[in-house]
Each structure stands twice: as structure tokens, then as C-alpha cells.
């Protein structure tokens, strides 16, 4: 296969000397978008950068877990937000199967953990220390959980291990899995009026920080191997007895065929690196300012030329 390809390549070089230099394909670069704003806007920002470079771009809406299978098969070219906590497992699985690779980290760090809106702290002043959780368990109790507290974890397909942690740290809590991000917001939204204490799964960067100020619970600090080696963390007999990494990575992933097919776009992709503040701003345009994602991306690009242009310039030479 490879020899045929290089033979063809050699042939085309002979016939069309003008094309000898590696050029980006005219085929559209397919960028996947998911169902949260920062990712949609970021994808549009990068897409518009590619378009300015004269490339064709198309967007496709996909599931955020299934997308790694699509990157692997080359159905989509890249993925701009690979969260360590949420998608690390799917990403690694696809990586092992082959077909996609790591295209570098963003500056931004991600954190996903047990979280509460600020009003909760008034009822339970010992927070954010996790050891306060058991004393406050009754505040988080609901009819179904009896005298135990209730923690609303992320959907099962996010693989968050809330139950294991509650057990490992001896927390007097029932862990319920919400079915979607929307379910988490609905739960916080419903608690807002009466300032009812709630404990839910949340992450940053995220639009919710702007709507409901809050804090993460400080669990025992993450040590490498906490999820594989019982010795790590305070409980010597259990896994998952630490908090999630407070500075998780946010990666970009690319299809293995991308560097050959769109070399300059790939070069830019490698350079791209957004910070937490930039990502929060992208999300804010859509979530609080009610812009459409394309519009938000255009506005963001206009305001941040000095950041973006050097990445493109570096790849032109």
C-alpha cells in the first residue's frame, strides 16, 4: 500500500512539478462538535482559522465518547477538547487500537470533582474539606436516601467512580448517577430558590461557574496510581480514595492521516493552545451573551488576533 502511494506520489511529482511541494488537500477538514458551548465555539474558532488559510472546513455533531472511534477511522480529522477525566479512557482505548494520536496539550488545565454551589457552605461551614461531609450528611439527605446524604454523580458513561470513592473514604452518602449534564443543571437550578444544599458533580472550565458560583470539595490530593494501587491514598485497602487530579490535561487529538493530507492545518493544530480564561470567554459568549457559536467564534478571533496569528504564521514558512 505504502509503495503504491509513494509510486503515485513520485508520478505526480514528475507530471506536475508545480505540486511538488506538499499541499493541503481540498477535501473539507471535518471537525466534530459536541453538546457543550466551549467545545463548539473552540471548534468554530479553529475552523475559521483553517478557512482563513484557504482550507475547506465542515462541522459534524457527534457524541463526545463515540467521537474517538470516528477520529480513528478518519471520519473526522481531529478533536479539540480531550478532557483527562471525562474522555481519557475512550481516548486511550482508541490510541491503543491505532489510527489517532496525541496532538499536544492546551495550556488550560481541567478539574472534575464533587462540587457544591456557594449557598451550601452557609449550612455546612466545614467545607471544602472532605472530612466535613459526614457531619453534614443530613443536610444532603432526600426522601429516598433516608438519613444518608445524597451525591449526584455524572452520567455512568463519564466513568467517574463516585461510588467507589464514597466507600473508600467511608462517606455516609448514597451516590446517584445523573443521566446527562442537563440533569445536573436542573438539580442545581431546582435547589437555587430555597438555597437548598446540594452536592453534585461539576467541572471547570464550564459555563456553570458563571451562573452558580461554587467550589470543589477538597479530597485527599491525587497521587498517580490512586486508581490502580490500593496503597496510594489514605485508605490502604481501597482504590479511588483520592480526589481527581486538580490539574488534569486538556489535549488535542488528531487522525493519523491528517499530517499527510493537510500538512499546514496539522502544523497549526499542533501549535494551538488555549488557556482556561480564553476557553471561559468562548463559552461565555454563547452561554451568557446568547450569541450563535459561529458568531461567537468570529468575535473571539477578532479580539484575539495577537494570540492566533503567530500560530498560523509559524506554519507558513
Amino acid at each position, binding site marked *: 500500500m505504502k509503495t503504491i502511494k509513494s509510486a503515485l506520489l513520485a508520478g505526480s511529482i514528475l507530471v506536475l512539478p508545480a505540486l511538488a511541494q506538499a499541499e493541503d488537500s481540498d477535501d473539507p477538514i471535518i471537525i466534530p462538535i459536541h453538546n457543550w458551548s466551549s467545545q463548539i465555539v473552540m471548534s468554530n474558532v479553529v475552523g475559521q482559522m483553517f478557512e482563513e488559510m484557504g482550507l475547506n472546513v465542515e*462541522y459534524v455533531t457527534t*457524541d463526545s*465518547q463515540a467521537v474517538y*472511534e470516528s477520529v480513528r477511522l478518519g471520519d473526522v480529522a481531529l478533536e479539540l477538547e480531550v478532557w483527562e477525566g471525562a474522555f481519557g479512557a475512550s481516548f486511550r482505548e482508541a490510541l491503543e487500537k491505532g489510527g489517532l494520536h496525541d496532538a499536544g496539550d492546551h495550556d488550560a488545565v481541567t478539574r472534575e470533582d464533587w462540587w457544591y454551589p456557594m449557598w451550601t457552605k452557609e449550612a455546612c461551614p466545614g467545607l471544602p474539606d472532605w472530612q466535613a461531609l459526614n457531619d453534614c450528611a443530613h443536610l444532603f439527605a432526600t426522601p429516598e436516601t433516608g438519613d444518608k446524604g445524597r451525591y449526584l454523580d455524572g452520567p455512568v*458513561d463519564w466513568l467517574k467512580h463516585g461510588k467507589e470513592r464514597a466507600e473508600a473514604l467511608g462517606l455516609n452518602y448514597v451516590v446517584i448517577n445523573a443521566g446527562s*449534564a442537563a440533569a445536573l*443543571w436542573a*438539580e442545581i437550578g431546582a435547589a437555587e430558590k430555597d438555597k437548598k444544599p446540594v452536592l453534585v458533580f461539576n467541572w471547570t472550565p464550564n459555563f456553570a461557574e458563571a451562573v452558580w458560583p461554587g467550589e470543589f470539595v477538597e479530597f485527599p490530593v491525587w497521587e498517580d496510581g490512586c486508581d490502580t494501587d490500593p496503597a496510594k491514598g489514605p485508605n490502604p485497602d481501597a482504590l479511588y480514595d483520592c480526589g481527581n487530579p486538580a490539574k488534569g490535561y486538556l489535549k488535542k487529538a488528531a487522525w493519523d492521516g491528517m499530517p499527510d493530507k493537510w500538512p499546514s492545518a496539522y502544523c497549526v493544530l499542533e501549535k494551538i493552545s488555549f488557556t482556561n480564561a480564553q476557553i471561559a470567554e468562548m463559552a461565555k459568549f454563547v452561554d451568557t451573551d446568547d450569541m450563535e457559536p459561529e458568531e461567537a467564534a468570529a468575535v473571539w478571533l477578532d479580539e484575539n488576533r495577537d494570540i492566533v496569528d503567530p500560530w498560523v504564521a509559524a506554519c507558513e514558512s
Partner: protein
Amino acid sequence: MTIAGAEVGSGKAAEAPPNRTLWILLGIAVALMLGRALGLLPDWLIRLPDWMIPPTAEWLDAIFAFVQNDLGLLQVTRAIAGGLEYLLDATANLLYGKRRWPYLGPIPWSAIAAVAAVLGYFLGGWRMAALAGGTFVWTALIGQWEIAMQTMSVLVVAAPFAFLIGLLLGIAAWKYRAFDMALRPILSVLQTLPFFTYLLPAVIFFKVGPTAGAVATIVYALPPMILMTTLGLKKVPPEVVEAGKMSGCTRWQMLTRVYLPAARTELLVGVNQVIMLCLAMVVLTAFIGMPGLGAKLLAMMGSFKLGRSFEIGVTIVLLAITLDRLSKAWVVRQPVHFERGTPWWQRHVFLLAGAGAFVLFYVLAQFVEILNEVGIRQNLSQGREIDALIKSVLDIDAVQAVTQWLRWFLNVQILIPFRNSLLWIPTPAFILLVTALSYWVGGRRPAIYAAVFFSIVALSGWWDRSVITLYTVISAVILATLIGIPVAIAAARTEKWSRRMLLVCDSAQTFPSFIYLIPAIMLFGVNDVAVIFSILIFAMVPLMRYTIEGLRTVPPEMTEAADMSGATRRQKLMSVQIPLALPTMAVGFNQAIMFAFFMVIVAAFIGTQDLGQELQRTLAGSDIGKNIVLGMNVSLMALTFDMAILAWANRRERALGLTK
């Protein structure tokens, strides 16, 4: 005793008395349960031990890998996907200007709205014209034109394909009995398979994006088209066939000039069903990359924008009702015949009017920007205001007090004990109980299927989750019956209220079920009450629809006979109308169960502990084997009920002499 009473009486007599088999089944089940209560039952009779459960998922994975890679099916499907993509790109270009061949689009919104209005006038006069034109004007003004057209660009390809494939399969099933026999079980499974199970194979074989969305939509919309085609062709009267034969038609002419035109009504009902099912998939296919209204809705819900989600829901309902009414008007409309010698333009006056309106607005839009595109800042979206309204309603203290009490009462007093007792029943006893129920309701055949199907579920290794799924469905359907039937009976008393209620049913059915989830959670929190509440809304629709239709179509001579013999309104209802409407109501009840099985999987987005949650988990990986096993479990349980209830309804109809 009135005539009606006599008939009903004889209907009861025709039913077989509960016989020995039933008692034996129940006896063993009770013995098993007693054994468990007394602690005498060995563990392997309570739940199947792990070593007895075959690794079905791994086998399926292996089969799939073999078919996909070694047999090269992937190449075939990807080639099909390529062709499909070409078509989708063309419609996408026309409707929203994707940069693909034929590079003509996007067509201005005003031109499309104008054509829709002319079409509406052609099919159903001014009211239809207002509905069809108004829907498109609303879509544009609310700022959803582009996403609505993304959705339509897939539907205008998927619906004709579903129609064509359904028509061909339906003809084949009518011609060849063996094919019909083979097709029917497949269709039943397809109709009950949860949509999560369509998604993974669609993505793997047809590439994430509109192509997979189109394929999943086509597969989902096929079954009723096939069934209606076969039904219509079977009903063609022999006189018509004779006439065709006498005039010396070839086989092809027989089919295209005699059979298909004679089955026109059924075929068009099939078309109507295809359109409605296509719209039902708009949101679900967003999970596999279908762009448009569904994807936007999910994004809006992900950032807690209830108002905007609600507006998208309204657009989907409007589109669905427009297409539904238009296609129904088409069913009723008889072909118009012109006198020989009528000039061409007179015969095609509406076609010309449509084309004229199109050209007029197309040209106008080149000069008047607002007719071409409604800008982001110009639209009339009231997202924030609706948000505030929804929140303020949910915040009313009385509402909160009621829902908090309901949450406590239903969860603690009813649902949790009910679930725990179902989970407590030993597996073999549970299977026997379901078998006995099927035997009692449907007779022997459904009972055998029930036993086989539930045994397969037990062998799948997902017993507890299946029982929880069943518990949710049963609870929701019981509550839906308790609320829906009285409302429907009340509405059925007058024509006006029947019509209004049916419109409510239409809207509730096409309104994307996802939108129910958020208010359900805000009212009840993430727990079973919210899950059951959202299923309940959906399951009530067919119950009410069929009850109203059943009561309204009770033959008038029967009710008159009751009136003449001096029955009170209550007596008339209880001993004449309801018994006669019962078979139809049973079909509605059956539909309610099917809808509940569908919605229980969607409710995984609230947060459940049933099969839906596991199905959702499989989306994270490429666990296709497990995905299919879980989907089959849902399908098998749904089919068990389906067969038992339909068998009952058929027998009952025959006993009442309602079938022709």
C-alpha cells in the same frame, strides 16, 4: 337486556374459563416464592448463577468483527454511505448552502414558505395554506431557519427512501408468503428495539454524521410503510383485479395500474406514518451526528437554556403537525379529472402558481435581504423570557410543596417497595408469573413466547436491570391509565373536546421527549418519580387517543338501543360503550406500553439504574455486543406484552362481532 347487552354477554361467554394450566403455573410460582420467604430455596433458583450465563456479548462481538472486517461488509456499507452522502450534500446545498454540488443554494426562506403555502392551499384550502406557510415563517422569524433546513435536508432524502424501500418490501411480502413470514418477526423486533441500539451499528457502518442519521431514520420509519403496503394490497377487491385481468394487463401493468392505485389510501397512510416517524427521530439521531434542530436542542439543554429548547420543540411540533395534516389531506383528496381538451395551464394551475410564487420570492429575496435571511440579531426568539417564566412557575411554593410531597409519598410508600418486591421474586417464579399472565390475557401462544423470551432475558445476565426496567414501565403505565382513561372518557362525550384532546395528543407525541426531562427533574429531582413522570406524559398519549377513538366509534345503533331501554348515562357508559370500545382501548394500552419501553430508555438521561443506563454506558466505547444484548432484552420484554395484549384484543373483537 338490550341487543348490545346480549352481544356483550355472549362475548363474555365465548372466553375460555381460566383452566388448569394457569393454576399450575401460578402454583409453582407461589411455591417458589414461599420457598424463598422461608429461606429454603437454593441460591441457583433465586438468580441464575454466573457460570450458567453464556457470553453472548462476546460471541456477538466476534460475529460483528467477522462480518465487518473479514466479510468486507464495511466496504459495502461505506460505498452505500458514499452514494447517500452525495444526495444529502445536494439537498444540503439547496436548503442551507453547504458548499457542494449543485452550488445553487441556499434557497431563500421566503420562497420555500410561499411554495408551502401554495401546496397547503392545493391540498386543503386557506386553513392549510396558513398552517404550512405559517410554520415556515415562524421557523425563519424565530431564528431557526438554518438548523431547521439542516434537519429537512436529511428528512427529504430519508423519507422518500423509507417510502420506496418500504413499498418494495411490502410488495414482496404480499407476493411471497415465505418472505412475509420471515419479515414479520424482524419488523416486530425493529419496532421495539431501543434507539440506542440503532446508533452504534449506524455509526460503525455508515460513518458518523448525516449519513448515519439518515440510515437510522430510514430503518426506524420502514416498518409501518411495509405493513401498510401489504395490508393495502391484500384488501384490493377481487372485482377490481378481475377488471384488470379482463383488459389484458401485463403483470407490471397489474401492479402499477391496478393494485397500487386501488391501495392508494393505505399507501398514503403509510406515507403519513413514515413522515411522523422521521420527525420523531430528529432529536435522537443528533447523538450520531445528525445536524440541525436535534443537535441544537441537545446543546441548548446542555447549557440549561430551557426557553430556547422549548422554542425548538415548538418548531418540531409545528413541522410535524404541518406535514401530518398535509399528508392526511392528500389521503382524503381524490384525483381530479379534467374534461378532454382542457388547456395544459388549467390542469396544472397550482403547479404554475407554486412555481410563480417561488420565482417571485426568489427574485425579491435578491433585493430585500430580510426575505433571504433573517439575521441573528433580528429574530424574535424569546428564550430568556420563557426561561424566566418556566422558572417562576416551578418556583411557586404550592407547586414545590405538592411535588415534594409526591416525591416522598410515591418514592417511599409505593415505588421503592414495589421495586424491591419485584427484585425479591426468584427468577424462575418471575418467568412463571409473566407466563401465567400472558396465558390468562392472550392464551397459549403468547404464553409460550413469554416463557421463551423471559428465559432469554434471564440468560442474558442482565436480569436485575431488566426487572427494574419493567418496574418503571409498569408503574408509569398504571399511573397513565389511572389519569388518562378518565380524562379521555370525559373528553369523548363531545365532538369538540375530543378534537381538542386529540390535538393535545398530537403535540405531546411529536414534542421532543427530551424537553420533558428537565422540568421533570426540576419538579422531582433525579429519582424514579421524575423518570416515571416523564414516561407517563408520553404513555398517556396513545391511551387517550385510542380511548377517545374507541368510544366515538361505538356503533350509534348500540347507544340508541341503550337510550331506548332507559339506561342512565353511567349505565350506558359502563355496560355499552366501554365494553364495545375495550378492544380498541386495549390496542391503546398496548401502544402505551410500547411507548413506555421507548421512553424508559430516553429517561436514562435523567438517571436510572436500568437497562437504559447500561445502554448509555455502551455508547462510551464500541461495546457492540453488549449493546445488542441489552437492546434485545428491552425488545423481548416489550414483545411479550405486545403479543399477549393484541391476542386478547383480536379475540375480543371477534367475540363482539366488530371485525368484518
